[in-house]
C-alpha cells in the first residue's frame, strides 16, 4: 500500500529548514528515503528500521515513529544542492517490496 507524503511541494530559501512527512495506514517494517534530481535515478539517503530510531546524514536526518506508522525527513540549513524530489519508500515486512509515495518536490532558491 502506497505511503502518503506531505507536503507535495515546498520552496525554501537557502539556509531555511524543511520537514517532509511520510505516513502509512499499515504497520511498517522499514522506511527508506531517496532524493531524485530531474532526469536521474533516485539516490539513497537513509533507511530506518522499526524501533523509533532517528538517523542523521550531514544536515539531513530522519525519524521513524513505529506506533504512528510515520516517518519524517528533516532538512536543516538547506543548500541549493538539496533541490529535487524526495521519495519515501516503505516495506510492510521484511519480505515485501519497497513501495514509494508520490514524492515531495523541494526547490531551494538563493
Amino acid at each position, binding site marked *: 500500500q502506497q505511503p502518503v507524503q506531505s507536503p507535495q511541494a515546498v520552496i525554501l530559501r537557502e539556509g531555511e529548514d524543511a520537514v517532509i512527512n511520510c505516513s502509512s495506514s499499515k504497520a511498517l517494517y*522499514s522506511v527508506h528515503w531517496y532524493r*531524485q534530481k530531474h532526469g536521474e*535515478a533516485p539516490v*539513497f539517503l537513509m533507511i530506518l528500521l522499526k524501533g523509533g530510531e532517528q538517523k542523521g546524514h550531514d544536515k539531513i536526518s530522519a525519524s521513524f515513529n513505529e506506533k504512528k506508522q510515520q516517518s519524517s525527513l528533516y532538512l536543516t540549513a538547506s543548500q541549493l544542492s538539496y533541490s529535487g524530489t524526495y*521519495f519515501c519508500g516503505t516495506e510492510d515486512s521484511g519480505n*515485501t*517490496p519497497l513501495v*514509494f*509515495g508520490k514524492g515531495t518536490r523541494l526547490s531551494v532558491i538563493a
Partner: protein
Amino acid sequence: EPEVTQTPSHQVTQMGQEVILRCVPISNHLYFYWYRQILGQKVEFLVSFYNNEISEKSEIFDDQFSVERPDGSNFTLKIRSTKLEDSAMYFCASSSASGNTIYFGEGSWLTVV
C-alpha cells in the same frame, strides 16, 4: 563503488514491438527489482525477483511483461507488444538482503511511438 548498470540508456520503439531492457545488478546482491517512472510521476514498483523466481509483482506487471536472469549477472525485463503508455523510465535495482538498502541503476528511458 559497485553500482547497478542498465542498458540501453534510451530506446525508441514502435508500438507493438518487443523491447528487452538489461540490467547488471551489484555482484553480491540477491534481490532484484524493476521499477517504472512515467515522466513527472512517482516511482512505481513492477516486480521483485529472488532465488531465480518472481517474489512479488504489482498489478502493472501483467502478461505483457516478463523478467529473466539468463546467466549469473544479467537481469532483464521484456515488454511484449509495447503500447504508447509504456513510455517511461525503467529502473533496475538490487539489494543484498530484504530490508537493506536498495540501489538503483541510472534507468532506461523507453519511448514508444
